[in-house]
């Protein structure tokens, strides 16, 4: 009798335990239900408690823009190593630089120009950097005198021999020093658009302040042209839209008329046309 009582006192709790386990732990049991409720509460708490975080990834340039930058650097290196003075070369121009800024900064202590490309979050992240040794940036702009002297030297129908005589005897000499280019410390190239501006790539020279080059929009219609007088200075061409119609005749301190750089395909004194005809020298 005692044995049976003992057996019953073990069996009944065992059966109750089995029932509880089945009740809670079967796939559709109470325990699963409790888990679902708790995880729902947890998920809603996650969206309430704790600061939202952001992540970042390595910023990159779109392939087209990277190709443009690579070509620019290759062209500059070629111009630097050329033996030809007063020559021109073509880097191909820039595609739409939306979201990207290219800066060229000259460091006199290293006698180098640093090319920095910014893009990424906020357009301030550095995605590319290159030091071009022995190169100084310049522009064909900055003053009426500089642009006029450049025009006189190159934008005419004379043969190269005549132009060369003029350059070697009247320009950049101690006898009659007339600059036909403006050395600068930094250049920025980016894209600008807006309801009140002409959309397009722009070139800016910070040290010019406002009033010269920096207030002209869509002013890098340069046909991809670069110029070097001495294989050390490499000049960009800020441009201005032609106020007088299609022909190379409206240059001023803000730069050359874009028709002088090939915007007008019929213009016979444009740099692109003269290079084809051998009236100007190519660096490469």
């Amino acid at each position, binding site marked *: 009798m005692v044995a049976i009582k003992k057996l019953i006192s073990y069996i009944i709790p065992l059966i109750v335990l089995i029932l509880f386990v089945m009740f809670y732990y079967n796939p559709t049991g109470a325990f699963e239900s409790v888990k679902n409720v708790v995880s729902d509460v947890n998920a809603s708490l996650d*969206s*309430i*408690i*704790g*600061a*939202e*975080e*952001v*992540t*970042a*990834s*390595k*910023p990159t340039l779109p392939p087209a823009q990277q190709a443009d930058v690579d070509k620019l650097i290759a062209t500059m290196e070629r111009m630097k190593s050329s033996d030809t003075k007063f020559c021109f070369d073509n880097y191909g121009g820039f595609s739409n630089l939306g979201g990207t*800024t290219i*800066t060229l*900064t*000259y*460091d*006199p*202590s*290293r006698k180098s120009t*640093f090319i*920095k490309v*910014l893009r*990424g*979050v*906020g*357009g*301030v*992240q*550095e995605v590319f*950097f290159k030091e071009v040794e022995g190169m100084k940036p310049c522009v064909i702009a900055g003053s009426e005198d500089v642009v006029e002297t450049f025009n006189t030297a190159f934008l005419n129908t004379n043969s190269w021999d005549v132009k060369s005589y003029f350059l070697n005897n009247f320009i950049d000499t101690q006898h009659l020093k007339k600059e036909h280019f403006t050395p600068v*410390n*930094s250049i*920025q190239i*980016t894209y600008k658009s807006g309801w009140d501006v002409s959309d397009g790539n722009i070139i*800016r020279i*910070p*040290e010019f*302040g*406002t009033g010269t080059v*920096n*207030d002209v929009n869509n002013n890098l219609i340069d046909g991809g042209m670069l110029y070097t007088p001495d294989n050390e200075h490499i000049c960009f061409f800020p441009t201005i839209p032609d106020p007088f119609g299609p022909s190379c005749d409206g240059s001023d301190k803000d730069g050359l008329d874009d028709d002088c750089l090939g915007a007008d395909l019929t213009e016979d004194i444009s740099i692109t046309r003269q290079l084809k005809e051998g009236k100007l020298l190519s660096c490469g």
Partner: protein
Amino acid sequence: MVHKIHKKGDLGFLVAIIIVILSFMLIAGTIFGFMSGAEEKEAETLCKDSVALRAAASFSAGGVEAKIAPLLCQTIDKKVSGSKEEVQQIIADKMARCWEIFGEGRYKTSVFENTNAFSGDSKCFVCSTILVEDDRNFKGEDTGVTALEFENFLRTADYPKKSMKYLDYFQYGGGPGYVIGVLTPEGIKPGRAYGIAFKAKSTSGELNPIIGTVGGTSIGVGAVSMLVFGVGTGGLGLLIAGGAALGVGLADLFQEDVTLDGIFLVDLQKDIQKEFYKSCNLVADIAGT
């Protein structure tokens, strides 16, 4: 005979005293050195933990986020010396540590704002001030580390703790970020002091990439830019390579609403320091300074 023994005994005692004193000085020096380093580490850890707790304990409802845990951070003053390379490494490490402490740019809203309900000016906290002292390899009369040199250092040197370049760490090691240096033409050199500050993102919500403008023309300040400021006619202004001055003041840098967190290295030259403390909307440390 007794007299000689006494003399020998006295000598031995003297030697023992000298050894004890020298040992004490050596041990005390080691311990105090360890403790001062430990104090700095402790302060940094406390600050970092308070920032993390503040973020973890923030509460969002209806798009409004509220942070209730306080920041427990203090500005650490430090003297450093060494060769040019070593000094650059130390300063870069302190900048990276400051970035790490304040969340590496990972938090969507400013770590300093208690709530984003009212968007305000972005605030700064000075993590550390560093005094560079003379060293036999790098003295006050030597040419300093130029702004471009240090910029290049951040670009090319590895930050060992994160196995990436310093610039990469600031740009995308956690969240997105940037670094700006405000130096004088003398650069980084002994005899000068520098502040390292964390500038929190603006909560104005609009992505504004332009940092510093000259009459509408961006000066193209990028993710790492070591800028040189000089005092000339018209006051303190930004110089570019070659010394040409732009009409950009420090206020243009510090008051811009930029939606990225950033780290500033600032030469604590009198005019720059004055402008920095005026422009940066500083958060006081736990000492109340």
